[in-house]
């Protein structure tokens, strides 16, 4: 069940050497060529497109080239999505396949949230009041689709009819994080807001619903995964969430430290010398030209 990587190209069983080891001793030139080809394919069809997504976004946001940047990001994203077909030998393509599998329910979720938010009392961009109900329905359907992907035959299948190894990474992480965030949002609403009890109660209910789904997955086997596997991955998902937060926090800390130490090393700006007589004359002349009104 664990995603097994052989460095893109050749799958392996745990704790056994690959047929021709990528990271170790490669003796046969044919074998080496095969490995290089698969590595090159993975680089061209998965890794380079993946890198173009943030690069395109950076170009677009910075204003250097807005439209080309956006197009570059979209092309990169599209190539990552279809990587399971363009580079099927790459283990990394499982991630692209999973992203493609969850694209429809994710878009439905985003559409639903948009309708729920802008169907209410908003000062700008207000939608028809029915958008609120259709949005709620869309969110409910998207969560049901995710559940069917776990308990019914909507489960994303990858190579040879096997379950996509990243589905069991995605699903517990999504459930755990949404439960935690909804709970936090509910407490924040009650604590910082004014008379927000009923709104907080709705968020608590959503948090309990997501927790209920997680507990069900812990107790009942999925279509292609067992409850034991889900419980094991629940621990890994917790480790992932905490680890990601610590890592991101450390990177932001390092960034702040670099900026702070550079700014601290800069000399204090000196006082500028007083203006010369010529400069004063020039300023007075400019002022006279601009503030002189017509006499009545």
């Amino acid at each position, binding site marked *: 069940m*664990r*995603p*097994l*990587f052989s460095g893109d190209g050749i799958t392996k069983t*745990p*704790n056994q050497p690959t047929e021709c080891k*990528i*990271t*170790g001793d490669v003796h046969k030139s044919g074998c080496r060529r095969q490995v290089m080809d698969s590595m090159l394919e993975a680089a061209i069809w998965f890794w380079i497109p993946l890198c173009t997504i*943030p690069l395109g976004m950076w170009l677009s946001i910075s204003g250097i080239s807005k439209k080309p940047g956006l197009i570059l990001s979209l092309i990169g994203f599209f190539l990552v999505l279809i990587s399971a077909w363009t580079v099927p030998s790459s283990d990394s393509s499982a*991630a692209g396949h999973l*992203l493609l599998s*969850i694209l429809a329910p994710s878009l439905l*979720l985003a559409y639903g*949230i948009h309708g*729920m*938010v*802008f169907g*209410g*009392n908003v000062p700008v961009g207000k939608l028809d009041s029915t958008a609120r109900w259709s949005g709620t329905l869309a*969110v409910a359907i998207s969560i049901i689709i995710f559940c069917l992907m776990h308990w019914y035959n909507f489960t994303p299948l990858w190579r040879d009819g096997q379950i996509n190894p*990243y589905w069991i*990474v*995605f699903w517990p*992480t*999504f459930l*755990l994080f*949404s*439960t*935690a*965030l*909804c*709970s*936090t*949002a509910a*407490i924040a*609403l009650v604590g*910082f807001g*004014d008379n927000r009890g009923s*709104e907080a109660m*709705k*968020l608590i209910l959503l*948090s309990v619903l997501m927790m209920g789904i997680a507990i069900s997955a*812990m107790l009942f086997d999925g279509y292609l995964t067992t409850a034991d596997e889900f*419980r*094991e991955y*629940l*621990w*890994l998902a*917790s480790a992932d*969430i905490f*680890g*990601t937060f610590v*890592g991101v926090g450390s*990177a932001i800390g*390092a*960034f702040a430290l*670099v900026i702070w*130490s*550079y700014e601290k090393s800069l000399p204090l700006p000196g006082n500028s010398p007083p203006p010369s007589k010529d400069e004063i004359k020039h300023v007075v002349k400019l002022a006279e030209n601009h503030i002189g009104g017509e006499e009545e």
Partner: protein
Amino acid sequence: MKEPTASWKLLILAALLPILILITIDIAIGGGSHPESFKRFGNAILTSYVVMGILLLGNLFFYADSRHRPLAPLVGMIVAIVFGVAISYILLSNDDLLLEANSGVRAQMLSNIVHLLVSGTAMLLAALLAIGTTFATITGRKRRVLFEEEE
């Protein structure tokens, strides 16, 4: 407007509590120990540190625009990233410390990046659901009349 009654401690507790409840239920069911989660924790820290560092390095170019393009912060951030990559390499090379079911160090590093992509997507979607629902509940309330003159 009333005084805020929530603190950061309470918010952190609210975030941790559901996760702790689920883990407690797993232990009660008889889940046993999960030594692999320590490896995942370590890999997640190192990978997210390096990837986030690279994204922040891009941000430094904006910063450099307003400071006559100094090299020192760029070099400092590159050193911080290289430090993260070196630590990752050393820990992954060190026997069975962080290596999961992958064939080698390079395979594990690639696996970590793809893993971060998937778990990051899961977290983004969960954030969309939670934050979106929060705003939906706020905008869903009927408009309150604050002053009689508004009628």
